[in-house]
């Protein structure tokens, strides 16, 4: 078990203007196969990746936002969202899509994956990692 490392994927870009957000999600899904302790951080414009109701029909690119809801099946269950970043953009947690996972240690109870944290808490989460990958 000692070879399990803590990986944090840091997301600071909005979803469709660049390829960063989609690439991050791809790497998270690939990384999930390696059974590491994975967390995702959403701060600055990265919080826009999680808004509910995305519809990309008119811009000709894939709407990848539903994929976040599949992360729980890959045991990626910690999505930290920075409260200050939401506030600065006029968003609340209610503007984000609901993302849940089934907790195998708690009779498969459905639990929220999104955890809204303060900037100070986010700094501590970042400092607690073995590996930080930025997108």
């Amino acid at each position: 078990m000692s070879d399990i490392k803590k990986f944090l994927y840091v997301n600071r870009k909005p979803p469709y203007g660049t390829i960063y957000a989609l690439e991050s999600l791809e790497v998270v899904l690939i990384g999930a196969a390696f059974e590491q302790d994975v967390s995702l951080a959403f701060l600055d414009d990265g919080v826009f990746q999680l808004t509910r109701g995305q519809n990309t029909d008119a811009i000709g690119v894939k709407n990848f936002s539903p994929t976040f809801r599949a992360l729980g099946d890959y045991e990626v269950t910690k999505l930290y969202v920075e409260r200050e970043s939401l506030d600065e953009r006029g968003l609340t947690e209610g503007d984000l899509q609901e993302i849940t996972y089934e907790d195998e240690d708690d009779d498969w109870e459905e639990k929220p994956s999104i955890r809204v944290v303060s900037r100070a808490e986010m700094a501590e989460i970042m400092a607690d990692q073995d590996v930080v990958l930025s997108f």
Partner: protein
Amino acid sequence: MSTLHTVNKSPFGNATLSSCLGHCLPGDAVLLIEDAVYGALDGSAMADQVKSRMGEVALYVLDGDLKARGIDAGKLVSGAKCVGYDGFVDLVTEHDRTQSWL
């Protein structure tokens, strides 16, 4: 336990350095590379924010990127240290993790 943060964007068109400074912890180091070296200029609109963290966070600037842009080290905020690529490697090894702010 400490982190080396690297930043590569100019702070005058991008909030990345500002976000980095808002998330680094005492004992961490920030290394400015590529266009982020402009963030170490004293007297700039960014200088006060940079200086406000310098008591607890070490500030480094990649010398080659500074020279490429014609910026004299004397123009930097007091306490900023210039390092070469060898110093960059040393910083990576001296910290527990490296976080790139893109």
